[in-house]
């Protein structure tokens, strides 16, 4: 709420409008700075690392669409990420699809999986929803373990990156990086559009007060399913691109640990903030890269960070920043 001790004569609504104007200015400044950084980043960082980061950032933002903006905790998002990786890898390698169509195949596949999983899972709420999605995604894991096309424990290897639109050679890591960046930006724009659309507003109302949304005449189940499919499709976009970046698709991406990882990224960055998951993903991926060379297991760190976040750091990095003195001065607000 607005500060009552403020002695200025402006009405609360006026203050609020001014604040949100400052916020959108700062947002724009951050956005330009962030984009500029991503454009020049390959000069300073290892491209594969950056691409991995962008894929996971998009994955986490897609997940946050559901948790942060609809209030549904899915414990099965690995299915869409890893499933799309399999579909894209298979389409590109076995059917000879060009990369753009391969990624599209991944997105469509993930959306269909999301439709099926969502249809079953939205029958229960809250904690049950989380358990059901976890169980269904474990089922998909076993399916991938046994199905022919996933090639079991080996996974689909040596996936060709191919030529984007027939003329951009993605085997060059610079080209690949800018392709991933473009996909990331497109994905983020879609998410931004989605949460600010009337549909997204209704989702937020469901998050805040489901009974009220029902009484206002909204078909809550349909909106939830819509959000679930949207989130699954975007997670699939990230997974499909990841399969092209690393040129393989394996069981790791569909395992439940991956679902846990994306939750951690979102929680760490800030649930319900548009850009929070990007920071969360950045931190987790960097940590994994750092620990990859030591024999200390990442799981312990992940688990401890999880516990600390839940106990004392529930707003996440970006949420804390928004709620901090500097954040408020810049015109941000943190609610939820």
């Amino acid at each position, binding site marked *: 709420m607005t500060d009552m001790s403020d002695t200025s004569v402006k009405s609360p609504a006026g203050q609020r409008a001014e604040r949100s104007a400052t916020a959108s200015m700062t947002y724009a400044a951050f956005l330009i700075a962030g984009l500029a950084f991503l454009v020049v980043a390959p000069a300073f960082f290892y491209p594969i690392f950056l691409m991995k980061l962008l894929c996971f950032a998009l994955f986490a933002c897609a997940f946050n669409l559901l948790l942060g903006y609809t209030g549904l*905790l899915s414990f099965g998002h690995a299915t869409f990420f890893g499933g799309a990786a399999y579909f894209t890898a298979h389409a590109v390698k076995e059917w000879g699809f060009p990369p753009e169509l391969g990624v599209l195949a991944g997105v469509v596949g993930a959306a269909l999986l999301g439709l099926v999983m969502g249809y*079953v*899972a939205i*029958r*229960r*709420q*809250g*904690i*049950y929803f*989380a*358990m*059901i999605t*976890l*169980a*269904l995604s*474990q*089922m998909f894991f*076993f*399916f991938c*373990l*046994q199905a022919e096309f996933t090639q079991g424990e080996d996974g689909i290897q040596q996936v060709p990156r191919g030529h984007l639109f027939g003329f951009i050679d993605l085997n060059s890591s610079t080209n690949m990086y800018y392709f991933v960046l473009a996909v990331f930006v497109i994905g983020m724009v879609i998410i931004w559009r989605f949460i600010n659309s009337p549909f997204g507003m209704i989702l937020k109302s469901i998050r805040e007060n489901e009974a009220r949304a029902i009484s206002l005449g909204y078909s809550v189940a349909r909106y939830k399913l819509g959000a679930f499919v949207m989130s699954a499709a975007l997670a699939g976009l990230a997974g499909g691109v990841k399969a092209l970046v690393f040129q393989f698709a394996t069981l790791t991406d569909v395992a*439940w640990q991956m679902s*846990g990882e994306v*939750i951690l990224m979102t*929680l760490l960055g800030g649930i319900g903030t548009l850009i929070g998951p990007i920071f969360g993903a950045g931190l987790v991926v960097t940590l994994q890269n750092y620990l990859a060379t030591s024999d*200390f*297991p*990442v*799981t*312990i*760190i*992940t*688990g*401890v*960070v*999880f*516990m600390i*976040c*839940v*106990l004392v750091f*529930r707003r996440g990095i970006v949420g804390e920043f928004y709620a901090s003195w500097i954040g408020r001065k810049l015109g941000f607000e943190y609610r939820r």
Partner: protein
Amino acid sequence: MTMIFGIPLQAFLGQLLIGLINGSFYALLSLGLAVIFGLLRVINFAHGAQYMLGAFAAMLMLQYFGINYWFALVLGPLIVGLFGALIERTMLSRLYKLDPLYGLLFTFGLALTIEGTFRYLYGAAGQPYSVPPQLAGGTNLGFMFLPIYRGWVVVVSLVACIGTWLLIEKTKLGSYLRAATENPVLVQAFGVNVPMLLTLTYGIGAGLAAFAGVLAAPVYQVSPLMGSNIIIVVFAVVVVGGMGSIMGAILTGYMLGIAEGLTKVFYPEASNIVIFVIMAIVLLIRPAGLFGRDA
């Protein structure tokens, strides 16, 4: 040789027994989950890790102190229960005021930490724990060969399930627990120490999981991953049964274990996923679960 549905009777009964054993563990674990959820409104994701801790406690006590199976069956649950109570008191209890999802996420982190630590210390491979000499060997029942230890597991877990049910439904402590589930504020006003009750419940739940772990040690390999493999299946069991009733959780555990065993006979490829398929079907037909009251 006697055949049943085109399958040799021996193979059929053998799988039925394995199903019954798995079902015993599902029942014990989903019972503990239901008890904890009933009072704390927390889904204890660390239940699998606590089950694994029970098995490890038995193995390590034997290795380092020569403590045999029978003492481990008492000490294992006690140690893990105390550990659980400590966690509840110091950390988990801070989350009750929040959305129940945070309890799930916290215990998920706890599970990862415990599992990661044991993986780091003991490796991912399983280690054997031998059957106690008193229960070694088997008997020929005429129609099938029954390893005594397996029969013991079925009987003991049944006793433990019924014992817990009696504790909650028929004793004074149980009546406090049930009352605190309905209205904690009112119960506290009557002078019952509700926070203590919550700690006790979490400790008992964790102890039950560890008890199942000690029982499981001679049947399966003792491995850091044994908990996470089983907990997801137990979640599906809990969704099917609905967490509203203790008896429902127990019955569903046995039923789904047997269903899984029978699937191994008739269509082995699907045995990994049959419980999840049943879960999906139940959700489509009866969203509240078989015994559930709340949706």
